[in-house]
């Protein structure tokens, strides 16, 4: 489904990813872990061709389509979705308005307002968020936790097949983590998406039970394992928990 081949990325001549390789199969759940500055968030942004990052070499292939230098809106139209660490707010553009346009552009068809509104309301209930979110500006006046739930509302409406979650747990309390995890698990059951998550939250890893855990250090995948590797790293730290992690962390 997604193949990252020998990807090297830099910002202002500082190398952030170096010869990065990763294969992700359809319908699997992957967790990225690693010390601060390892390149986890960089990878998430680069997958969406963030303009601040320069790709020096390598390719990103999604379902046989080269998305390395594709416009982010075209990447999204292929069914890739991202929840960033700190989702911004856009006053004056409502969730409903944005989602209706996104769906119409993705499908090329007019959205049935009745069905659209019904699904929006049902999803709000599912996520335990007030229905007035629908007509509020995007993330406008919302707390960090509410923003993450609002991004999941968008996910349910846009029905992506590949989901990137960059520290979705930040700003969430324990109950909200459970809501998010059960929501993602429900989405997995219905749509069987591929999920790539950056997280160090034990509860989230436990609840999502990923198929693969990748440890990233110095801009490349240093070790790949299963769920147990993630739990071991959380227990023992990157130095002792992962077989290859020796020496000190490299901070940003």
């Amino acid at each position, binding site marked *: 489904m997604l193949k990252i081949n020998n990807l090297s990325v830099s910002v202002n001549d500082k190398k952030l990813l170096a010869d990065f390789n990763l294969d992700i199969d359809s319908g699997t759940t992957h967790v990225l872990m690693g010390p601060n500055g390892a390149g986890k968030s960089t990878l998430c942004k680069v997958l*969406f061709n*963030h*303009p601040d990052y320069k790709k020096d070499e390598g390719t990103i292939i999604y379902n046989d389509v080269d998305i390395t230098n594709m*416009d*982010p*809106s075209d*990447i*999204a*139209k292929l069914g890739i*979705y*991202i929840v*960033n660490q700190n*989702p*911004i707010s*856009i*006053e*004056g*553009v409502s969730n409903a*308005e*944005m*989602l209706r*346009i*996104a769906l119409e*552009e*993705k499908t090329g068809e007019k959205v049935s307002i009745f069905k659209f509104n019904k699904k929006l309301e049902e999803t709000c209930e599912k996520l335990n968020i007030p229905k007035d979110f629908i007509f509020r*500006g*995007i993330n406008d006046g919302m707390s960090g936790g509410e923003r993450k739930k609002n991004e999941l509302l*968008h996910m349910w409406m*846009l029905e992506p097949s590949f989901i990137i979650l960059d520290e979705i747990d930040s700003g969430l309390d324990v109950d909200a983590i459970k809501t998010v995890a059960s929501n993602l698990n429900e989405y997995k059951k219905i749509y069987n998406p591929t999920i790539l998550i950056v997280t160090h939250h034990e509860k989230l890893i436990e609840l999502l039970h990923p198929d693969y855990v990748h440890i990233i250090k110095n801009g490349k995948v240093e070790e790949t394992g299963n769920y147990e590797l993630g739990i071991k790293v959380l227990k023992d730290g990157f130095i002792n928990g992962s077989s290859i992690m020796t020496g000190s962390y490299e901070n940003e």
Partner: protein
Amino acid sequence: MNNIKVNSDYNFLNEENINSLKDNTVYIINENILKNKLVINIPENYHLKFYLIDYQDDYLDITFNQNNNSSIEFMFSITNNKKSTYIITNNVIGSNNKTLIQGRIYNDVKADTNAVINGNIKENTVNNDYTEDIRGLNLYSNNLVIKPNLLVSTSEVVANHMVTIGNFDERKVLYLKEKGISEESIKKLLLNAFLYEIFPKEIFNQDN
């Protein structure tokens, strides 16, 4: 909604009819009728709300005079696509007044805009609260000048004035792209947000 019918001589807010306004509110939506200089004297203890929405003509000159114990909330959005001059003046002559002027000026592809926002808070006045917040959107790097002239002649006042001119926030553009929205639609969404975000939402939910 009380959408004021504007007289042909543009003298639609005078001492005789200002008190007949429903909710003390004026809406002018998508009408380019303010070709002559308009002076509005706000009576004492009067609280005026004036919403000028979607103004697209090349000239506008409005002066508000505030006496005592009044308030004004003047919100305007302008889309300009020619050589245009806009002058907005607020004279605070008395005391205990509140003023809020919020404006949005969009400089379209052929625009050449000169705007002046004058605020005069006269001497020997006290306890006035004055705020101007004007923003310009200049996507095509045309001439767009917005001068915030605030003259304060008293020390007992709270006065703020701000003008910014810029382009769309790149973070917002990227965020919307990541939802799968094309640049053309993003421009429409963000332009509407820029122009109308300052107005009460009820305005757009009513029939007229």
